[in-house]
């Protein structure tokens, strides 16, 4: 492996790009879960976002509309989940699983007409600065606007949950919907909003895949990333910053292990392939050992059905 600085910069840039869908989807799901709702439909919402974004790009030839549309479609599909779990009080786990299955099937159906159409070039920012600075150039510059947003998002989420009133309300609802309701908070409304927000972020994560990362529509193109995002939220013990760290480790080792293979290191390839999963879990478990903090961050009512007694 060549170890010059610029190469390492390029590598880090690639790692950042590969972790974007995980960060977006996990940050969205984190807000949903903090309000006490467990939505296992992340993969389904992502894939719907991916196809809607791509389809809109083909139809309107406008990337801005495509990105907005993907978020809207993620949001719309999460309404189904909201109505079922919040208004009709169905089981969160079963409904979320159904949403994933529905999303994958639905996206394949819509996508039939969009298979085999090459994608459009997505504008990358500061591309000329990328070449000018060795090492830092490929890390900081030449990315899509969605990547910059994704890397800001965990910090914004952290601030939002800890320092704003709405953040506090969301956490209160997630910890004890009954107490929150007694305080006059409309629990159902808060949970609905969090579900919709989660849906929009998952939609955006999907659009990142179909518009920027592998710009084309291919069935099942999310390839299980929604499930990894879900796992990240839990292993990061519902902390946005740890979600970011986890996503980077996962993306990082995924890419590094490919490089290690290409170099021809004599490590069993199966072990290398399993490494991203193993390392992410180990690191997140180690950095989240503080049981007091876990208690503080875990939404106690996660996955429980809430209905207001009349």
């Amino acid at each position: 492996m060549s170890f010059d600085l610029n190469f390492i910069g390029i590598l880090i840039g690639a790692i950042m790009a590969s972790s974007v869908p995980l960060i977006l989807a996990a940050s969205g799901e984190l807000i949903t879960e903090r309000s006490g709702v467990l939505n296992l439909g992340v993969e389904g919402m992502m894939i719907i976002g991916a196809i809607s974004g791509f389809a809109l790009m083909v139809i309107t030839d406008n990337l801005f509309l495509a990105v907005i549309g993907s978020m809207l479609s993620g949001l719309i599909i999460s309404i189904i989940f909201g109505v079922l779990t919040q208004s009709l009080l169905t089981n969160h786990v079963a409904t979320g699983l159904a949403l994933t299955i529905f999303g994958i099937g639905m996206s394949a159906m819509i996508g039939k007409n969009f298979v085999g159409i090459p994608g459009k070039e997505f504008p990358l920012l500061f591309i000329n600065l990328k070449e000018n600075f060795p090492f830092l150039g490929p890390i900081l510059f030449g990315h899509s606007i969605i990547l910059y947003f994704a890397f800001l998002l965990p910090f914004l989420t952290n601030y939002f949950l800890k320092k704003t009133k709405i953040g506090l309300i969301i956490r209160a609802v997630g910890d004890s919907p009954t107490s929150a309701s007694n305080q006059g908070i409309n629990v159902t409304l808060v949970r609905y909003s969090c579900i919709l927000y989660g849906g929009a972020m998952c939609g955006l994560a999907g659009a990142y895949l179909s518009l920027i990362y592998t710009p084309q529509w291919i069935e099942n193109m999310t390839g299980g990333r929604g499930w990894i995002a879900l796992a990240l939220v839990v292993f990061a013990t519902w902390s946005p910053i740890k979600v970011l760290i986890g996503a980077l480790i996962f993306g990082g080792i995924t890419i590094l292990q490919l490089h290690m293979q290409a170099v021809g290191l004599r490590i069993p390839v199966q072990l290398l392939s399993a490494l991203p999963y193993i390392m992410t879990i180990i690191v997140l478990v180690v950095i989240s050992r503080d049981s007091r903090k876990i208690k503080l961050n875990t939404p106690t009512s996660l996955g429980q059905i809430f209905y207001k007694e009349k």
Partner: protein
Amino acid sequence: MYKNFLRYIISVLFLLGVSGQANADFKVGFVYVGPTGDHGWTYQHDEGRKAVEAAGIKTTYVESVPEGADAERVIRQLAQSGHDLIFTTSFGYMDPTNKVAKDFPNVKFEHATGYKREHSNVSTYSARFYEGRTLLGHMAGKMTKTNVIGYIASFPIPEVIRGINAMTLAAQKVNPDIKTKIVWVFTWYDPGKESEAAQALIDQGADVIMQHTDSTAPVQVAEKAGVWSFGQASDMQRFAPKSILTSIIDDWAPYYVERSIAARDGTWKQQDTWHGLKEGMVAMAPYNSAMGSDLVKEVEQLQKDLASGKTHSFTGPIYDQKGNILVAEGSVADDGMLAGMNVYVKGVEGDIPQ
């Protein structure tokens, strides 16, 4: 009297209908490992299915069936629901296919790329993709400037290893300095992972990329990075018009139509089919003129020689990585050896994952 007559007519018509249906009821089932929209492996199998349908035979298919326990359930389901002939189109369906075949002796099974025919109702078929890989190796060896060829491999099975070896041997013949770098992704189909693998190989100095996975993602990465690439299973040219030198095309349609008609007419027999460039089961997409007319002519000639049998992809002397002789000078590898190939030839770097 009149009423009875009507009843008689109706029952005769009904019987005719039923017996007519017996023939029309002949159904062929397909099991796919990926989605039909992958524009690669599964897409080509589905094109074959459509040809069967066009020949007037009913077909159904199940797509994205994982290899393993799920596969057996799906194959069994197809056998139970009245399919007379079932094509299982991935290597990993080998054991499930044979298992189900044992329980349904009246149903015919066709397993792609496998070698197990444990029951008389199981046939196997495959294409000599390695002949295409030989052509790719020739082009790669001539086109590379860094002398590094990047290879995205799926699973360590003989078919994939044969492809790596055939490509490397052909590339060495025209360029003794080439190195083949291999990345195993352990999936047939994951666009994200495949493109990451392609990028890693390019970052490691490869300026020609080829894949034994099914999505179009790697050729798109190659297009963006300005390196050469080859399409897999179907013509992927429009996904990377500048980068793709050619694609290996799998053409299953004639075989599927022939076997379906044979099964319908009762002439189906167990067999093991391995067709290549000669029979047209392996075909090459148009060659990219960017490689120069001389090289195009050379490759076209090589393609003709491979098809006619004048040249063989595995002509001795061939050595393994340790320098032991695999194929003696002057002879060619026999089909048995090719089918079970599980060692790299000299010049390939790394170990085969066990």
